[in-house]
């Protein structure tokens, strides 16, 4: 039987390959994700390992709680006198102090800070060149002396910096221009993505970073016979408060912690999209196998008559799936390597350059990718396999035999369906509520429970009943995940994920019932949209394509041909390249296309549209499955677009509310809109002529009630410059916070049962815990609060936080927004290239543009599942053409032209795509509404433009998917097609 299965696959190479593509893409995404994240991890581990390699122990400032980088606050510094004490310790061979800053901008020749997405701009004091603690190697020049700078090779070469040139640098104070003393790289040659590195000697760095007399870190090398642990013990005895010591190895791990957290988030995020692609792939495979099995009815029946058991039939189908799954997974695994490269470039293109020290291919990548691909393929083949076993032997002697009904009687199937579904649901509930939810095992168990549930739903003899059960359970799980209180984030996500998948499955099943109606409805839509698109591309593509082909291969005098060729080449040179490529292909391969083509027309053809429409209706289950694969991708894209539209709308509203009836004219933020910037920038703006008032909003992390939260601090000028909706208190609160008052948002007040007058114990990063009094409670706008949960006065904040940072500043000016005022402010900020002056509209647009780059990544990732479904349509059409060979031959024999055959197939394809799009878009909006109902800070907004784009994209998918199958159909020789048995 194995041989039978393998030979069967070999005999259907094209169909097998088309089926496999669905899995190849999903697996490639998995393997690509692992390769990508492993490679980033390796890069960071090597950086941190290298930096700490020569240190036996490291002393650092210790904040009272963990801080995330870019949060506006940093670990506290300590007095540089500690260095001498450390050097005096018996176990210490050598020790060196350093300072650093993650906001050291290098200024390019254009006067702008060199930034790349969210990559940090690191500045640090470089240990003396010969020091063992220096992980860097000079490429050119010398190590920086007093008031000199050295920068990394990548930044230097990309921006054309040369030795001796004055390079602008800005850390805490305004820009300083320092001569470039040297260019360095990491000794191992690795680069850190978009990160810029600037090195100074210690006194210069201390001055630039506003850390004179202070150190961030002391690196210690022990004497040869002193083990690191003993050294640490010695150091611990002399440690002042708010400092800590770790061995070099521990410190490297601590350094890597935050990036590791980010990368594991990235990994989960990308794997989720791989999962979606595989889920869509499962639909495509189940559908392709169902069709092939229906076509092979007689084959299976013959096998039964010569003694094959049901189990052997099932076994051969599963064996085929196993082989396809294995081959596709191996292909996907290697495609994943390419994909990882592509993802590096994608992130680079949208501004998140990632570090890369070569691709890492872990055994875990191989195991997970292969297992996922094979398991999904085999599972998707189980149901078609069972259908194959229901072929009775008598089908061997029936002509044009088709698959008989379901194997078990209705009542038994209903009971069995209910039983299996119930088992799946119980299992799922048990798994989600008792396991941690974020481990591999619990996700695996949840998926198993999901599959059992889906299988149960599929068992119901009535498709509609099964679909209703599946949808009902799906929405129940979704709603529970969204609205039940007290679930952790992972459980919420797990419930939602399971719910959405159940809903997709149910909708896919019920679609079968809707196909006849939908197909009739979509037929004219397909006809006219193909016409519209055809007219649009006709002058730019269709016509020059025809002219060029005519010119190269056409009949007629050489003058006419040369004319046609030149005309075509002039209209669209890109098509020229395509046609020349085809000519080359024709010359070197066995490929023999038809030349010259008919004159291209776009006028719709009612008769072919009619046959195409009926073709799409004759096997509703097949059309439904094919459309469903596309439905899933479009539902998710629509969901994302609807949420994004909601976020944009509410955000705009929130900013409008904040600025309404206020005196603010300009906002100042970092160039990337979100990084906290040194306060000197806004202070410089405050001194500009015409400035009436400046309100700064500081940001950073604090710890309250054992939770680390984001806090903000605001100037008293806020009373005039912004307006808040007060639940308890008034605008006056903003001006009267003093040194011990805070105001909080309503959500935080409710969560912690706080009222005006309540004391709030706040721990700052330096370890001090102080009591503040709640002076007011405000109602944050739905689009997002402009403040953290707790807001201090800048005076109280600056007293506890070293080098405070502004998230944004508002400026009120005499004469409001004028070109002159804008110029004045920009001039005042000239020394702070990372600061950006914006009007209210610019401020909103800039904030939204950050959202757009996230959206673009989501769209690209979801496009993968749309691509999988495109191959699903191709596959179905190829199988259908194969099945209808006789019929197409007959149509050709009675006078249908090749072009009409192509149009017929294309029409069917576009109808299928449109059905998928329609259901997907509706479902996507429904899911978005459900989500928005839960998430209070987003209002619903309909993304009209995006939806139109998605519909057009679906039509294009339909047209593209039909190209290849339509060509095959058109090429059939009518005589052979009729004789075909």
């Amino acid at each position, binding site marked *: 039987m194995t*041989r039978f299965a393998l030979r069967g696959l070999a005999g259907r190479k094209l169909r097998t390959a088309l089926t496999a593509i669905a899995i190849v893409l999903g697996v490639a995404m998995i393997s690509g994700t692992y390769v990508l994240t492993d490679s980033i991890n390796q890069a960071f581990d090597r950086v941190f390992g290298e930096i700490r390699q020569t240190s036996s122990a490291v002393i650092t400032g210790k904040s009272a709680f963990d801080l995330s980088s870019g949060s506006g606050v940093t670990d506290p510094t300590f007095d540089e006198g500690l260095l001498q004490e450390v050097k005096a310790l018996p176990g210490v061979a050598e020790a060196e102090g350093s300072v650093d800053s993650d906001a050291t901008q290098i200024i390019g020749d254009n006067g702008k800070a060199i930034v790349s997405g969210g990559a940090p701009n690191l500045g640090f004091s470089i240990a003396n060149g010969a020091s063992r603690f220096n992980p860097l190697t000079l490429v050119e020049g010398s190590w920086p002396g007093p008031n000199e700078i050295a920068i990394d090779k990548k930044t230097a070469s990309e921006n054309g910096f040369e030795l001796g040139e004055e390079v602008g640098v800005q850390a805490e104070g305004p820009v300083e221009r320092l001569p470039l003393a040297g260019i360095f790289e990491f000794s191992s040659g690795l680069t850190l993505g978009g990160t810029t590195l600037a090195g100074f000697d210690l006194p210069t760095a201390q001055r630039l970073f506003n850390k004179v007399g202070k150190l961030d870190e002391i690196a210690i090398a022990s004497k040869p016979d002193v083990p690191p642990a003993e050294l640490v013990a010695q150091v611990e005895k002399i440690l002042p408060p708010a400092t800590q010591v770790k061995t070099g190895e521990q410190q490297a791990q601590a350094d890597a912690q935050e990036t590791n957290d980010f990368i594991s988030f990235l990994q989960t995020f990308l794997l989720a999209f791989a999962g979606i692609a595989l889920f869509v792939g499962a639909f495509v495979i189940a559908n392709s196998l169902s069709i092939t099995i229906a076509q092979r009815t007689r084959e299976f029946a013959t096998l039964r*008559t010569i003694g094959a058991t049901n189990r052997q039939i099932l076994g051969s189908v599963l064996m085929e799936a196993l082989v396809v799954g294995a081959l596709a997974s191996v292909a996907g695994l290697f495609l994943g390597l390419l994909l990882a490269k592509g993802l590096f470039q994608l992130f680079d293109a949208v501004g998140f350059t990632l570090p890369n020290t070569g691709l890492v291919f872990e055994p875990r990548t191989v195991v997970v990718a292969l297992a996922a691909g094979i398991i999904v393929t085999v599972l998707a083949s189980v149901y078609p396999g069972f259908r194959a076993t229901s072929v009775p032997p008598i089908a061997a*002697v029936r002509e044009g035999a088709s698959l008989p009904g379901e194997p078990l009687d209705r009542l038994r199937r209903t009971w069995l369906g209910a039983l299996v579904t119930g088992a799946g649901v119980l299992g799922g509930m048990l798994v989600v509520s008792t396991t941690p939810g974020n481990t591999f095992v619990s996700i695996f168990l949840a998926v198993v429970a999901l599959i059992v549930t889906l299988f149960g739903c599929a068992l119901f003899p009535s498709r509609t009943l099964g679909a209703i059960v599946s949808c009902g359970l799906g929405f129940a799980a979704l709603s529970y995940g969204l609205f039940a209180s007290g679930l952790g984030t992972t459980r919420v996500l797990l419930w939602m994920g399971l719910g959405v998948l159940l809903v997709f499955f149910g909708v896919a099943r019920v679609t079968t019932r809707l196909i006849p109606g939908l197909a009739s409805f979509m037929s004219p839509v397909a006809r006219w949209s193909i016409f519209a698109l055809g007219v649009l591309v006709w002058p730019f593509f269709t016509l020059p394509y025809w002219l060029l082909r005519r010119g190269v291969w056409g009949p007629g005098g050489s003058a006419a041909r040369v004319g046609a060729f030149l005309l075509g080449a002039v209209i669209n040179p890109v098509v020229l390249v395509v046609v020349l490529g085809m000519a080359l292909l024709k010359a070197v391969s066995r490929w023999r296309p038809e030349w010259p083509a008919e004159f291209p027309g776009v006028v719709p053809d009612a008769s072919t549209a009619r046959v195409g429409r009926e073709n799409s209706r004759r096997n509703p289950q097949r059309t439904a499955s094919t459309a469903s694969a596309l439905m899933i991708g479009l539902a998710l894209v629509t969901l994302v677009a609807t949420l994004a539209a909601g976020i944009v709308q509410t955000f705009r509203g929130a900013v409008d509310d904040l600025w309404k009836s206020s005196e603010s004219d300009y906002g100042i933020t970092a160039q990337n809109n979100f990084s906290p910037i040194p306060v000197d920038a806004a202070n410089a703006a405050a001194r500009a002529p015409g400035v009436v008032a400046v309100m700064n909003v500081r940001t950073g992390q604090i710890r309250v009630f054992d939770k680390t939260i984001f806090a903000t601090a605001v100037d008293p000028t806020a009373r005039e410059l912004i307006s808040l909706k007060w639940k308890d208190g008034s605008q006056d609160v903003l001006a009267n916070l003093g040194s011990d008052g805070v105001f909080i948002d309503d959500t935080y007040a409710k969560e912690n049962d706080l009222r005006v007058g309540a004391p709030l114990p706040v721990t700052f990063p330096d370890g001090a815990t102080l009591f503040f009094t709640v002076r007011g409670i405000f109602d944050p706008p739905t689009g997002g609060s402009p403040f953290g949960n707790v807001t201090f006065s800048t005076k109280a904040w600056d007293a506890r936080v070293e080098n405070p940072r502004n998230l944004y500043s508002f400026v009120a000016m005499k004469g409001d927004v004028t070109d002159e005022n804008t110029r004045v402010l920009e001039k005042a900020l000239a020394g702070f290239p990372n600061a950006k002056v914006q009007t209210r509209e610019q401020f909103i647009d800039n904030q939204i543009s950050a959202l757009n780059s996230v959206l673009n990544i989501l769209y690209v990732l979801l496009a993968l599942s749309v691509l999988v479904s495109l191959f699903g349509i191709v596959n179905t059409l190829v199988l259908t053409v194969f099945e209808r060979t006789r019929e197409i031959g007959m149509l050709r024999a009675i006078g249908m032209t090749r072009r009409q055959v192509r149009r017929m197939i294309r029409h069917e394809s576009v109808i299928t795509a449109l059905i998928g799009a329609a259901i997907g878009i509706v479902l996507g909006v429904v899911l978005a509404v459900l989500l928005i109902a839960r998430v209070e800070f987003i209002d619903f907004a309909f993304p009209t433009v995006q939806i139109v784009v998605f519909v057009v994209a679906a039509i294009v998918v339909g047209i593209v998917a039909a190209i290849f199958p339509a060509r095959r159909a058109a090429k059939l020789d009518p005589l052979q097609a009729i004789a075909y048995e």
Partner: protein
Amino acid sequence: MSESQNGAVVVAHDVTRRYGEGDTAVDALRGVSVEIAPAKATAVMGPSGSGKSTLMHILAGLDKPTSGSVGIAGTEITTLGDNDLTKLRREHIGFVFQFFNLLPMLTAKENILLPLTIAGEKPEGGWFEQLVSDLGLADRLSHRPAELSGGQQQRVAIARALVTRPTVLFADEPTGNLDSATSAEILELLRRSVDEYAQTIVMVTHDARAAAMAHHVLFLADGTIVRELGESSQHEILAIMEEVAAT
């Protein structure tokens, strides 16, 4: 070999078969009893719609009778479950079809050996070789069905049916898809399998020449057996067919 007194290998008693229900019900068989003698060829003839195909399907266990009993090699098959029927097919039944029903991706040899492969058995020593040479397929074994003529394909199908030495071989219009010269060749081979290997054959046909090679001919009309003949000539059979069709 059988519980039947006269040694019949296939015994049907009062078999009826009704398709559909109520007003639209069609009685394909209305009480047919037959006994198929071992090592003989039995032809089942009759006009279209006479129930001859239904009878063969029921005798071979492909279809279930509405009432009545069918025994093959002493086993009552109407009550067997799917697994037991499959086992019975492996041991006792061979099929030859009108459209050959070869698996296109397997070679002739693989097609012939398929019943054994499926059952997980090896061919008995020499039997495969003898079959192949008797059927003139020795130089065609590595070919795929698509590379064989219709007659060659049917010979492969016959070899596939005989390779397990079944108790009975059922042939459903074995010459229905072949030209007359090739038909004669195939009928000759079937007859030789009866004479040389003592193979029992049940053949449904409406080709009088095919029926002429049988030892017994059953005539069906309207779901009942209307005539039975011993070994007869083509003319005799044609005459009876006309008679049967007229009634």
